[in-house]
């Protein structure tokens, strides 16, 4: 069953014809329910724009996005906020937990906004925290725990309300390799246990190797897609191969980041 479908997405920035930039140029793809999907591409390839458009935060110049069969361009104003709140979950590079809420309250936030009863909130938060191994941290505040722990709390918040789709933007970008591994394990786990569909944008081939499918994007168009076979190690090698095929731009960017 298709949970996310994009067709002919085009996004043009700039008003005058000369200064115009095509961030997306007729991008189309589909994601099956329950998949863990990665999106990779050099900087300027349009992946951030793609994520913004898919997540209903930006509006495409043309083309359509369907989430769970619903055309998201039909949603306006508050409907859009409600849609995002109920149907989508987000994980950000810098965690975006609220400093004023404890870890437990941060995770509970989507359920509180949805006006769920207290007992149901408590039960669900404990369940999700246990999956992610952060049940010991529930009473702490974000600034009292490590980056990896914050990111796992953010993942818990993203899935606690059982959204149709979880969007993740460079979730390992701020983490050391050990924490990055723990976070990717957490994604794999919630994908398997909760059946969450995850769409992750990343630069990191290691992180991408945890996905089941990786889409590569260049110049606003779908470049290619590859599917994971048996081993993660082999998939990692496959990803590196595609990246080297894509060439120049990507290497440059990796060099930038180091």
């Amino acid at each position: 069953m298709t949970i996310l479908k994009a067709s002919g997405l085009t996004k043009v920035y700039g008003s005058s014809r000369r200064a115009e930039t095509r961030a997306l140029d007729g991008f189309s793809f589909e994601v099956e329910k329950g998949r863990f999907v990665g999106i990779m591409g050099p900087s300027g390839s349009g992946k951030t724009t793609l994520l913004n458009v898919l997540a209903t935060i930006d509006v495409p110049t043309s083309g359509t996005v369907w989430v769970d069969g619903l055309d998201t361009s039909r949603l306006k104003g508050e409907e859009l906020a409600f849609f995002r709140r109920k149907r989508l979950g987000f994980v950000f590079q810098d965690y975006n937990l609220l400093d004023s809420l404890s870890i437990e309250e941060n995770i509970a936030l989507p359920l509180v906004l949805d006006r769920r009863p207290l007992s149901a909130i408590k039960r669900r938060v404990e369940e999700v925290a246990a999956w992610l191994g952060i049940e010991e941290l529930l009473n702490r505040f974000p600034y009292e725990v490590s980056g990896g722990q914050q990111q796992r709390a953010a993942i818990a918040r993203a899935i606690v309300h059982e959204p149709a789709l979880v969007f993740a933007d460079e979730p390992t970008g701020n983490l050391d390799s050990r924490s990055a591994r723990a976070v990717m394990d957490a994604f794999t786990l919630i994908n398997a246990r909760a059946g969450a569909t995850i769409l992750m944008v990343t630069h990191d081939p290691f992180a991408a190797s945890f996905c089941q499918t990786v889409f590569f994007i260049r110049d606003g168009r779908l470049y290619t897609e590859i599917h994971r076979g048996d081993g993660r190690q082999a998939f990692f090698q496959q990803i590196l191969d595609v990246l080297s095929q894509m060439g120049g731009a990507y290497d440059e960017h990796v060099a930038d980041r180091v």
Partner: protein
Amino acid sequence: MSTWRIASRFFQHDWRRYVAFVGSTAFTVMIYFLYTALSMHPDLQGGYPYARQAVQGMKAAAVVIAIFAFLFLLYSSSSFVRLRMKELGLLSLLGVSKGQLIQIMLGENLIVAVVSLAAGLGVGLLLLKLFFMGISALLRLPRELPFSAGVGVWLRTILVFGGMFAAVSVASLRAVLRRSVVELVRAGRKPKAAPRFSAWRLALGLLLLIGGYLWAGSPNPTMVVTGVVPVTLIVSLATLILMREASIACLSWLQGWGRYYYRPGPFLTISQLAYKIQDNYRVLAATAILVAVILTAVGTAFTLYALSTSDAVNTYPIAVQLVQYGGTDERPSIAAVHAVLAKHGLDRMPQRELVALQGRLTGRKLDIAVVPYSFYLETRTSGQEALPLGDDDEAILVFPNPLFHGQREEAESWNDRVQIGEEELALTVKPDEAGRLVNPARHLLYNLVVSDAVYEGLADRVAPGQRIHISMWTGNWRGRAMQQASSELSALFAGQEKKLISTTMRQYQTQVTQMGLVVFIGVFVSLVFVAACFSLLYSRLFTDIEEDRRYASRLQQVGVTRRELRGQALSQMAVIFFLPFVVGLVHSTVAMYALGTLTRRTVLHYGWAAALLFLFLFGAFFSGTGQLYWRSLQDGLQREARSGVF
């Protein structure tokens, strides 16, 4: 780009952050300028009545304003510097030298100083004429004060405030230069440690508060008077302690109440308030104290003003009263008064004649005037209950109404002797403290009421020199005609020892003039406090604007709607604004209760009237600031939305 340009860029970039600071400083400069101009006015240095008091009052007020302004500047600029640490840290990270950093900060401070001085002096100059008109009317000066603001006035204002700005700049420079670059850059995002509740501090705060309240609530006027300063200090300290401990206790209690807390509104608002307790409680306490001072000052001013009317009637109950001593023909003078009244259309006032007998109560050692019981009954018709008079050997002693001080008579009755000329009578005397029968004059302060039979017996035998002839015109004592008649009558009998004229109007005018000045100074000083109070709240709100924007945009990403965000922001603001108001109102109610003890009547309603007035002002300020804050928050959100979430 020169350092000067950088400094002015900062100013242009986020003007909303500077508005409160510059605005309230300019306002303080203006008030100081007005007061100084008045106290240095050449016309007031000489002889007008009350002018000397007025000038002294103004000078005292100017000193209070200056001290207060300095503390306020120091506080605002330190919170301002904290806000800016990160920017300054980034500048030094980018290779700006210490010298240049100092130049930038001084440049910035110079802009703020020049703008607030210019604005304050400019507006002050515009209002000066109006101010002089107002004060001339209040002091009832024979001619309006001409416009005058000499070099001295300008120089003093500029020197006082320039000096303050210089001192404050040095303080903020020190604060920045003492820190390393890393500390500066990190200052902005230091997470706030969760404040801990302390039961013994709460107990201490409660103890201080109760102690202060009990002292102020004491029924003994002397206690109340000596308590003014210490009680203010004690209650201020208690407010500071309690605002912290009670906020922590209250918020954590609310957070523990799951069914209430785990709902969208309370969840966001309460957690955010709890998170900011450490920053908020000082401002909340300071605002509460300011509100208490403002309400009490204005309430007291109201009270004194309102009491001057009833006091005039209490001390001079007879609208127009002519007293003639010592047996001369009284008719020509009565006719003269009548003529003046008739001239102003007041000849329909009921007129009554009475002869009081001058004597002495030997037991009590009091000079008294004997009046008949029938007269007593006539004057005691309105409201006050007349005491019964039994046998001929009974008498009633009417005390002058003890208003602000003086002791109440405790005995129910006593035996005394009254001496009138050669005559002496033994009487049983009952006290009456329900108010005066006639206007005060020589021998007329205490009136001894005897039965009509006794009175007539005495009147027949008394020497003409002992007779006091009183002519009274009663009825409406107010109005323009009465004002004119009153001053003409005073002029007519001026300097006469044996013929005394008194009017309620004259007493009223004297009191209003004196009280008007108190009210005027009180209200003007309060205005400075109001400005400070508003500015405190405003800067509290805008100091955190960057953090609040980050917070709001994070909420938006999770799907919180704009309307929910707005509700959250406004309800949080409402707590920060109206909690101190309520606390201040409670404090000032206690203070007004104490004032009631001093004035021997209930004056709480004057305080509440002042509170209602202030509430309107406060409400307007709340909605204006709320709009501005929300718009400012939204600007940030839109900027964020344009750049996308990821």
